[in-house]
């Protein structure tokens, strides 16, 4: 029984029943498939993180963001600047208590280097309804190279708990056609 010592003292020498052998082989091969699928997707798939990141400070990151806003601001919405940077540019997004700042306006099928960082606690970047979710940490500038492929008005939800106002932390992002 499983609750008593093995009856056969040299249990390692016992043969493995066939049913188990079949299953072990299948499961092992399936594991290999799943393992190489991740590598394959890095080569052939389009959704991968480059893991490009830099150490930064809230002040330095905020300065870059404000410089971008000054350069590319096109209008304001409810107190938030709306920024329409040139395709290919570095774009900055701040997560802080409790907003995503500023509102970005990107062009469809253009590629941007999107930098995200936090000014205070951890936040969760959750782009909806596309459903891209990233962990945003203070002190780290996370860079992703994105290519929005559908136009629309998107929401950025915060999905990492960041204090009592967490559920009010929402941002907006527009994807528009090339003018």
């Amino acid at each position, binding site marked *: 029984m499983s609750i008593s010592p093995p009856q056969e003292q040299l*249990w*390692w*020498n016992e043969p493995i029943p066939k049913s188990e052998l079949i299953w072990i082989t299948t499961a092992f091969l399936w594991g290999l498939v799943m393992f190489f699928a991740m590598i394959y997707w890095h080569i052939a798939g389009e959704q991968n993180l480059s893991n490009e*990141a830099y*150490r*930064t400070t809230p002040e*330095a990151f905020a300065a870059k963001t404000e410089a971008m806003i000054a350069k590319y601001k096109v209008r304001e919405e409810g107190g938030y600047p709306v920024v329409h940077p040139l395709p290919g540019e570095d774009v900055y997004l701040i997560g802080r208590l409790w907003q995503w700042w500023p509102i970005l306006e990107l062009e469809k099928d253009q590629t941007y280097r999107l930098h995200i960082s936090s000014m205070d606690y951890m936040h969760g970047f959750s782009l909806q309804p596309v459903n891209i979710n990233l962990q945003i940490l203070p002190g*780290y500038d996370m860079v992703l190279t994105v290519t929005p492929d559908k136009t629309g008005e998107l929401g950025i939800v915060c999905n990492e708990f960041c204090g009592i106002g967490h559920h009010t932390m929402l941002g907006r992002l527009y994807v528009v056609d090339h003018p």
Partner: protein
Amino acid sequence: MVHSDDKTGNHPEPPTEDNSEPERIPVMQQILDNPFLLLFLGITIPAVFYVIWGIMEIVHIPIAK
């Protein structure tokens, strides 16, 4: 504590009945029967591959220009 004296060989019971070893115990079984070796492996592997490698990755993140 009872120490049975079965190493003499003229024991009435079959040899498998006590802790005497009728054959050499296979290496894998010896490993699996050794809790402290397992403890060592179970701590070292994640410490090396997860913790130490992970921390090294973080340390090597460059500083933003």
